[in-house]
């Protein structure tokens, strides 16, 4: 038994602890712990803080990032903490344990015609805790808002094992500093989220996809911009390229602009007509099961590949990002959220030069460009935008307040 596993045997007995476990971004954990209570989980962090080994919190494991944690470390899985704590449909709120998957939650809320309006890649297998920890953005955020806007409260175990109950379960809450916002998107560097309360939304009665296709993505930039500046806000709008759908709707050409319109039946028809009139081009309308399967394909589009890159800019600059991606050699899939101006790209054999070029374009636009996953060598390619030193200082001091021994996610910056 490794030193680390031996140290944990006292706090996480039996089933909860096993030696080794799946690698995280290529690094091998000494042990994997799956606590079944908050006390057990806090115990793991206290032992880690006392003994000085690293802890990597993992939920659904869908979003590990490219950077391997420093060794030695243990994987702390939240999957032993699962299930709905409270769900009051008339309040449109739900509290659930962090290890509950979003797929499980959508099933529970769907029975009451409600949902969590988030559609990141691999949505069903992501956990609620992971949603809070990553704060992941997805196309529906353009109309519904992001996880940060709808996570009303969470329970956190800090790096040194303190249990903090932050926020609450009401819609509006300004009682003290908003530490929930600090935690959402902190990627396991401040603590382990063990329970989350979210705001839910009524599930739209009807959804349609307005689809426009072209041989080249650049031909769809103008209509996408028209949608983004239209007087009616669609649920989402994405531009997918290098993409052929397998859904019953027939072959999609090289690039597609897909506008999702949702709401009451009468509203959807009227919104679709207004968008059509504003854009001027002609959309094909896709409905029902075909639309649902198209949304699912798009959700996971450009999320798998040897390298996955996330770029950000202003909505009006999305064409510049797409042009930069189009210049990348090799097979490339891309999904642009044209409402907010972000692009996700999946590429095989992304070269250091191409990666540096992408970062250069993003930097010139004042935006961002990060590797969501990919070969480690790319991390060494220079050219990242310089970080503000005061922001860096605030970041590291905040981190030290929540994780004084520095055990959480060693090697990763938030």
């Amino acid at each position: 038994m490794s030193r680390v596993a031996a140290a944990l045997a006292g706090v996480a007995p039996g089933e909860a602890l096993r030696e080794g476990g799946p690698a995280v971004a290529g690094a091998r954990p000494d042990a994997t712990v799956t606590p079944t209570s908050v006390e057990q989980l806090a115990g793991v962090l206290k032992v880690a803080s006392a003994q000085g080994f690293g802890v990597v919190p993992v939920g659904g494991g869908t979003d590990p990032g490219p950077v391997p944690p420093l060794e030695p470390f243990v994987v702390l899985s939240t999957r032993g903490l699962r299930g709905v704590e409270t769900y009051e449909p008339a309040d449109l709120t739900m509290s659930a344990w962090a290890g509950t998957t979003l797929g499980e939650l959508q099933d529970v809320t769907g029975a009451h015609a409600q949902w969590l309006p988030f559609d990141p890649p691999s949505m069903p297998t992501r956990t609620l805790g992971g949603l809070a920890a990553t704060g992941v953005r997805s196309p529906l955020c353009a109309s519904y808002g992001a996880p940060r806007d709808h996570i009303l409260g969470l329970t956190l175990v800090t790096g040194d094992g303190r249990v903090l109950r932050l926020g609450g379960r009401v819609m509006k809450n300004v009682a003290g500093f908003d530490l929930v916002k600090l935690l959402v998107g902190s990627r396991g560097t401040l603590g382990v989220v063990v329970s989350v309360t979210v705001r839910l939304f009524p599930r739209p009665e009807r959804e349609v996809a307005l689809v426009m296709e072209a041989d080249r993505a650049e031909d769809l930039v103008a209509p996408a911009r028209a949608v983004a500046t239209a007087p009616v806000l669609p649920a989402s709008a994405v531009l997918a390229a290098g993409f052929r759908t397998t859904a019953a709707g027939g072959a999609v050409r090289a690039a597609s602009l897909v506008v999702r319109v949702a709401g009451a039946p009468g509203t959807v028809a009227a919104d679709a007509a207004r968008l059509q009139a504003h854009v001027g081009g002609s959309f094909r309308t896709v409905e029902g099961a075909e639309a649902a399967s198209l949304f699912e394909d798009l959700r996971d589009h450009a999320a798998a590949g040897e390298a996955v890159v996330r770029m950000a800019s202003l909505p009006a600059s999305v064409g510049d990002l797409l042009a930069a991606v189009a210049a990348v050699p090799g097979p490339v899939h891309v999904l642009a959220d044209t409402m907010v101006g972000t692009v996700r790209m999946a590429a095989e054999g992304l070269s250091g030069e191409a990666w540096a070029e992408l970062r250069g374009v993003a930097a010139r636009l004042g935006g961002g460009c990060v590797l969501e996953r990919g070969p480690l060598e790319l991390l060494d390619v220079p050219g990242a935008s310089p970080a503000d030193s005061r922001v860096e200082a605030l970041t590291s001091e905040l981190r030290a307040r929540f994780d004084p021994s520095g055990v959480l996610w060693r090697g990763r910056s938030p």
Partner: protein
Amino acid sequence: MVGRDHVITEAGRLLVYESDGLSAYRWPPRAVVLPASAEEASGVLRLLHAEGIPVVPRGAGTGLSGGALAPEGAVVVGTARMNRILAVDPPNRLARLQPGVLNTRLSDAARPFGLYYAPDPSSQAACTIGGNVAENSGGPHCLKYGVTSRYISGLTLAMVDGELVQIGGAGRDPEAGYDLVGLVVGSEGCFAMVVEVEVRLLPLPEAVRTLLGIFESVEAAARAVTAIIGEGLLPAALEIIDQGTIRAVEASVYAAGYPTDAGAALVVEFDGTEAGLDEDARRAEACCLAAGAREVRRARDATERLALWQGRKKAFGAMGRVAPDLLVQDATVPRTRLPEVLGRIGEISRRYDLTVGNVFHAGDGNLHPNILFDRRNREELERVEKASKEIMALCVEAGGTITGEHGVGVDKRGYMRLVHGADEIEAMRGVKAVFDPRGLFNPGKVLPDEEVP
């Protein structure tokens, strides 16, 4: 640095700054400085920091929790001259502005482009965006649209030592780094001074439908709210006005034509695409009638819409005329607990022999029990304080919190331990110390005093 005219030290001119919307307190500041730009604010803070002088950032002073009050020896840095809209950017649906811009001025500037700024606190004609950022302000329309934090995409801060730091920004990667913007919004001027704001704008809704349901009781109106949400409808606003408030409004110059024998009125508003609104309104009307509404009025035009809103919008003004002083309370409970909590607030007010009027954002469960009193009557003031405390404890017990949109300020520091444990309060104190290690920013606000062991 800012010009002699913009440093106020004479007792007479300082009077304006000795209280804010929480009129029970009067704390005269040591001085008031009014910079006109981020650079001037930075210079002022650098100087005050070097001298170790505490700073209170202040917008329009409309806050209802005493957040802009200056404790002993503190200098107020006001944003009154930082009132320029720097850019409206329709292609990106953004605007950049200085913190002293009034909330309504921003929407006015965006309207020619078919855009508007969604958060609309009731004081929007008088309050500033900087103040909204500090308080994470709400308003009647946040049921559908959310609160201020959702619309703030970036901030420029003057840190306690004067350094200017940019955080967030709409074009930046929203997933990179900690959400410092989210952390600073709602921090009540305790972390840094906001000197520039970037906001997201929304397209103006095509049309609006406004209904007014008249009910025999507040509980029945609250049941209608639950039914409307249960229908899967998402109104832009759901506001309840109780009998006491209706009577105060009807007895005032703001008379809105609400029946004075009604137990409560419920304003329901839908906005969005014209085509769907009549159906939404029809379904909401059916919910009201099923919950026992005696009538449901529907506004046919903009004038009628304003009339239906009148009783809600003028409630505070009308209540204020009934007694010398009005304590505007603020708490949030889960929406389904509203009928029970309202009943118990009624019991508390009877027990303390106080008049409490309820006007509130029912869709969010955000209560505003308004207590009438006369601050010269010390015995009554004591009863007001006791009743307030019981109402807060009641809301917390019902799964709610001590403030939904007005902030903690000085007023609710004493209630913080009702909702937060010692570890949570220490965590908040630790975060404040990261921004402001010497405790110079807005001292004596938000956090309760340290517990004496």
